[in-house]
């Protein structure tokens, strides 16, 4: 019953500015695909929201021009992608955000993502985190949370 009402709410809510409408789905922090870190140390290591915003913008800027994966992002709603990724990282890093995106399986459905694509994203994320001067140990702690998502993201 409760998820149903949420789904209705998602349906009723207009798409945020600059984003295209999406099919209704049930919103939940569980859709982020990982549990948040305890405490504030990871959130601080990423320099809170401004740092996370720079990391995600740096990541997306790289991905959409990376010849190995750019085709996957062509025709996708990049405005929505940036917003939901920032929410997801904020949520996982302990920044206290709500994650409003779809779950990892649904969000990547029919994109035909292969292991190489997932690993290219990891590599581009590492470059974006290096740019933000996030320590390697904080980077790898985050990657430990993201790595199991490969099972939901990679379809073939």
């Amino acid at each position: 019953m409760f998820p149903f009402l949420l789904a209705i709410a998602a349906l009723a809510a207009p798409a945020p500015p600059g984003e295209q409408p999406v099919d209704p789905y049930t919103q939940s922090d569980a859709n982020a695909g990982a549990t948040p870190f305890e405490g504030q140390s990871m959130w601080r290591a990423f320099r809170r929201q401004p740092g996370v915003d720079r990391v995600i913008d740096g990541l997306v800027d790289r991905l959409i021009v990376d010849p190995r994966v750019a085709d996957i992002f062509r025709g996708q709603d990049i405005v929505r992608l940036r917003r939901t990724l920032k929410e997801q990282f904020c949520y996982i890093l302990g920044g206290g955000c709500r994650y409003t995106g779809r779950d990892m399986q649904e969000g990547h459905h029919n994109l035909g993502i292969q292991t190489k694509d997932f690993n290219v994203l990891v590599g581009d994320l590492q470059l974006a985190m290096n740019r933000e001067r996030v320590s390697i140990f904080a980077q790898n702690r985050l990657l430990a949370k993201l790595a199991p998502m490969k099972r939901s993201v990679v379809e073939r």
Partner: protein
Amino acid sequence: MPSSRSKRMFLALSCALIVAAPAHAGEEMRAGGKLLLTNGISTVDGAAGGGLASWALIAGNETVDGIGGSVHATYVPLSDYSLSSAGAAIGIRDRLELSYAHQRFDTQKTGVALGLGRGFIFSQDIIGAKLRIAGDAVTDQDSAMPQIAVGVQYHIAARDAVIHAIGGAHDTGTDFYVSATKVLLAQSLVLGATVRLTKANQFGLLGFGGDADDHYSPQFEGSAGLLVTRRLLLGGEYRSKPNNLTFAKEDDALDAFAAYALTPNLTATAAYVDLGDIATVRNQRGALLSIQASF
């Protein structure tokens, strides 16, 4: 002949490995795509590992959607000898690894003292196969499950006359091993353990089995490394070895290494190695320098 049974086992396992490689029908084959350093560092035996110790990782830059490979050259200058290894490996779908290495052990000036002559060379060829049977060293960060592989290596040593003169029983030998490797991303650690059933004397350069013992014994290989950057792994390895020959005791091998991924296709490794006493000559320590190109 001890080797005929070994050869049959090797062939049978190789066939099983090829059949076991899954067919992903209709999927796009792609080159490369493995994360940096997760193709390992070629061991002197030719298998993907950490230089001395074997890992469960599969050689080459390929993912489950491709075929990759690597070539390596390794030079190990020691106090009184030098060891070199060159080889190649193919990785199929990040599942099956086929490898070849040629090892050359130069006795240099010490050859005279050993009665073999200056610059006497021991050598061997090693053909290997490794199959990943479970786990994914990187993906499974939410469980303790490591990546597990089983492998077999068939060694053919040259210098059978000398091998038999020093008490060696065979000039060919087959090793069987099971290897577990885990990347602990939350700790930036890479851990590995291998149990190898072997009769090899000094990796097989001095033959297999001997006058003291001609049975397979389980030997242990352990490795631990810290990811200091995404390109640089600092670590150490330990590899135990059997003691099959009466003329000289054989020591375990140790190293401390730095492996650096210069590019996704090129990894350079420098290590300090201690191979202990070799053929009665004490305290063989030195460097291990290795370059590996992979695709």
